[in-house]
């Protein structure tokens, strides 16, 4: 089975600083695999193991900063076999439509593909739209919210957890599946996995033709924080718990 995982590389949100002017400073942020895409990679690795004789290819599109050797090894240390990366400032911060177009071009270049797995949503925009846009671009069906994947001949039987119902669906392959974090717990790569990852095939390329922007970003700002009292006490201090209890009572 040929399995593709589409992932996004984002600045690590733990490293994002808010400046005095309320701007977001990402200059010190490491490049990281978007958190829920880790579950997608693991789901692909597990599906490959279950199906046997499979290849897991990871595809990602982003600015030139994503061509980071530690990050590339981290991606390939999680059960994937090969990496296809478009790292080009022309491909930084693309909208869902343009991202899907760039991913589709890469995926079609890899060759036969049975399943494309996407994460639940990216850490930055969490729009949950690249999966469905990518499926439209590839002309294949897609479902989201997937928590279980089973290969079933020329189809995938998927269980999806939606807001109020659990659906079991049959999706003809090739198809795109967006998985919920529940689908698989990401592995923690060991030193051996990381060393091996460095020897796996990596295809790093510039961007081809990038689709015109469909959405314009006007402003990015930190939200205004509510003023809080910040009355913090050590629980061991005399009367601290009682004062805390009194404050709760007063607020109820």
């Amino acid at each position, binding site marked *: 089975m040929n399995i593709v995982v589409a992932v996004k590389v984002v600045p690590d*949100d733990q490293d*994002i600083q808010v400046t005095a002017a309320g701007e*977001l400073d990402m200059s010190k942020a490491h490049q990281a695999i978007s958190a829920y895409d880790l579950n997608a990679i693991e789901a692909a690795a597990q599906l490959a193991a279950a199906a046997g004789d499979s290849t897991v290819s990871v595809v990602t599109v982003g600015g030139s900063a994503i061509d980071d050797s530690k990050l590339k090894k981290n991606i390939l240390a999680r059960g994937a076999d090969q990496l296809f990366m478009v790292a080009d400032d022309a491909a930084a911060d693309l*909208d*869902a*439509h343009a991202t899907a177009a760039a991913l589709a071009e890469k995926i079609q270049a890899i060759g036969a593909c049975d399943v494309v797995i996407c994460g*639940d949503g990216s*850490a930055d*925009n*969490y*729009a*949950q*739209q690249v999966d*469905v*846009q990518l499926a*439209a671009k590839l002309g*294949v*069906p*897609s*479902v*989201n*919210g997937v928590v279980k994947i089973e290969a079933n001949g020329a189809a995938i*039987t998927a269980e999806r*957890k*939606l*807001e109020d*119902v659990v*659906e*079991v*669906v*049959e*999706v*003809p392959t090739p198809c795109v599946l967006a998985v919920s*974090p*529940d689908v698989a*717990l990401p592995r923690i790569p060991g030193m051996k996995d990381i060393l091996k990852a460095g020897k796996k095939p990596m295809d790093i390329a510039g961007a081809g033709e990038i689709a*015109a922007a*469909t*959405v*314009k*970003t006007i*402003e*990015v*700002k*930190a939200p205004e*924080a*509510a003023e*809080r*009292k910040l009355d*913090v006490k*050590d*629980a*061991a201090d005399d009367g601290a*718990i*009682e004062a*805390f*209890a009194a*404050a*709760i009572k007063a*607020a109820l």
Partner: protein
Amino acid sequence: MADEVAVAVIGAEEVPAGIADAAYHVAVPADAVADDANLTLAPVVEGADVVIAEPTRHVKSVVGKLAAAAGASVITDALSIEGGVATEMYFGGVGQVKRQAETSCAFYTAGAGAFGDAQPSGGNGAAEELAWVAPANAVKLVSSSPIEKSGVDLTKSDVVVAAGRGFAEEGDLDLARAFCDKIGAGLGCSRPLAEGVNWMPTETYIGVSGLMLSPKVYVGVGISGQMQHMVGVKSAGTVFAINKDKNAPIFKQCDYGLVGDLKTILPALTAAL
């Protein structure tokens, strides 16, 4: 936002009268999924200036396909839309981003809160039934079963207690439950407790992709204060925090904080209330 409003409902629900200028209904065949309603809805969306969709998984699929067909992208989970500019969360609430569609039709998903107290109006009567148009590679529905909810609707709770990773063992959650009983609170959690260790029902996690609440009182217990969680209670009336790490970020975002072990604090606090 527009002179003429058409509403389209996918699924079993009936379309109420008097809420729009035109109304459409799509019945989903028994072996199909609502996600595949895009071709059925395409004629309704054709020529529209704005499409606003409900932010559910089914509808996110449908509106995504409609946008893809129009060569557009959907601006999702808009907190507000003013003069064609939508405000969305960025990095789970670490930032906010303002975006505008550059296509002839703007697509958005937005929850009810985005439009404040705007009231529906219009002269629509019974909805027009749209005949289902199946796509070429249709997804086949095998079964659909309702999720049994825990019965707690935190969106209706005035008082919310959230448990975080500070709880080392599942059994310790009983301490939080006893505390909740005492102050009449609903118990929620941060995402790892619902989806990492499965100690709490998925529908009780607060924050990005989970619940967005504005209770009168919020008490974070063993919650470190990651943005991803805190954004879900940002508009709480009074924020209380209990954590053993005095450097936990939540102590910079609370009204009252207690530094210490939740296993000793919770029983003492429950007794003191």
